[in-house]
């Protein structure tokens, strides 16, 4: 059976700028590895155990991210606008996943950059979906998934095939070394044409300035006076 690990599929919104003409512009032109992607590959390897992990990416260039962390091969989706909207991104991913045989789980980052895409992919595939996942393991015909729940965690059993969206709690502790990366670059990469067409989309009508009130800033060079002014303001707000 095959477990798919989706990586480098979303644009980093910190590369988003507003130009002098009021239009949104980007300083980058391709998806980058997200904060959750290293945990995605780890969870995919945990689920697969002795099975195959396949990396799936929407980024060009270096596609060895998953292979350097345990994937046996990688599929690179080409030709999809990196600024595609959530339904289009999910559609391109779902169509690429459907073209693979014997997939029992798709692991993807529960990405704050594109928070709707994992559940859209699941819905397009008609599979159950669990978000905010810490880890997962395979059992016969199902996955046992630990997800965040209120202030704690919850273990749920979900039938396979399923979509599991992982939210990393920490940065990657043991990054692959140069030797592992160079070896990963020798593993097979299949380039496939992406299809993100046929979905309703928003059209941008431009931007305007936010209507938020500016912050009231006190000079802290005299801490006692600044704190007194602040406490007075907070009392007026009814929060102190």
């Amino acid at each position, binding site marked *: 059976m095959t477990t798919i690990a989706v990586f480098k599929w979303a644009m980093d919104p910190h590369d988003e700028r507003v130009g002098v003409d009021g239009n949104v512009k980007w300083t980058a032109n391709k998806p980058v590895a997200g904060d959750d992607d290293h945990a995605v590959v780890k969870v995919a390897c945990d689920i697969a155990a002795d099975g195959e992990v396949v990396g799936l990416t929407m980024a060009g260039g270096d596609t060895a991210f998953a292979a350097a962390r345990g994937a046996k091969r990688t599929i690179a989706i080409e030709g999809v606008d990196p600024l595609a909207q959530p339904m289009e991104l999910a559609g391109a991913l779902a169509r690429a996943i459907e073209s693979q045989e014997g997939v029992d789980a798709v692991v993807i980052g529960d990405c704050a950059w594109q928070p709707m895409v994992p559940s859209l992919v*699941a819905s397009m595939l008609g599979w159950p979906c669990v978000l905010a996942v810490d880890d997962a393991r395979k059992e016969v015909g199902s996955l046992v998934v630990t997800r965040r729940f209120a202030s704690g965690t919850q273990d749920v059993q979900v039938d396979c095939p399923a979509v599991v969206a992982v939210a990393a709690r920490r940065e990657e502790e043991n990054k692959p070394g140069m030797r592992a990366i160079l070896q990963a670059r020798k593993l097979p990469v299949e380039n496939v044409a992406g299809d993100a067409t046929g979905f309703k989309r928003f059209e941008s009508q431009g931007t305007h300035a936010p209507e938020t009130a500016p912050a009231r800033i006190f000079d802290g060079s005299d801490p006692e006076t600044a704190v007194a002014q*602040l406490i007075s303001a907070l009392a007026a707000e009814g929060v102190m």
Partner: protein
Amino acid sequence: MESIWAVVAEGMSAAAVVGVAQRSGLPVEAYVFGDSELANRVASYGVSHVHWWSDEQTLPETLAMSLASRAKEDMPTAVVSSDQATSRVLLGAIAVVVDAAVAHGIISVAPSDGGVKVERYVADAEAVEVLCAPGPVVCTIADGVAEAEPAATPAPIEEMEPEQNGSIKVLSTNEEGEGANGLQDAERVVGVGLGVGSKENVALAQQLADAIGAEVACTLPLCDNYHWFEHNRVVGTSTQKISPRLYLSFGSSGAPQHMTGVRAAKVIVAVNTDPEAPIFRECTYGIVGDVSKVLPAFIQAVSK
């Protein structure tokens, strides 16, 4: 008749979700997954109708396709919810079934010229982008939007039959620790970031929190790199979101990963030596000053 759906699967953002839906000017149909207290609270916000599933009997995720089928029949103009995990599973199913345009982090939605117009922050909230779609839209709301106010007459609540499709079931629920629970419910939170500088200042932050009846939170590096806090005290993108009435931040620059966790606070106060720190663009009040001098002054002032 045109309507907007407000999908509520957790209490923290219920008023904000209904608030965005109400400002569309359309009648609000609320779909609530939780306990009876949550259903009653949503009913008090001036919605037209509350459809309520008790989460003691139904795992909300198992209702995703059923809810989507209902949306296909009703064809609401828009469906809005928070970005909480359960809500997003429900929204994903609805969006695909009704063939909607999807956006996240919106601050408003309204019908416009036969379509739907939404607004959302872009470029770290430096601007608001206006988006239009021809058909139904499915959106998560941004943190910190204005909340719905209680109405004079509560809406009728229709308790829905429990359903299970068996594809997902709960095996066990584990509480991680009392600290996180305290943070989730706290009215006031004192947060510390890397700029707090020393463990002595962390102790002062704890002293201030004790003096004003607050919980203490931190940014991720103070837990991961310095090990000054347990993980359940971290607030931010990959950990937890909080919504106190007052969030006092000491020595945090305002990195997006942290601000995502506190943006739902009613009032944010920032103390930082750097007047250009991004947090001063997001706070309500700020003090440009040295944390090690402001904290003792704060403790002294509130202890009087």
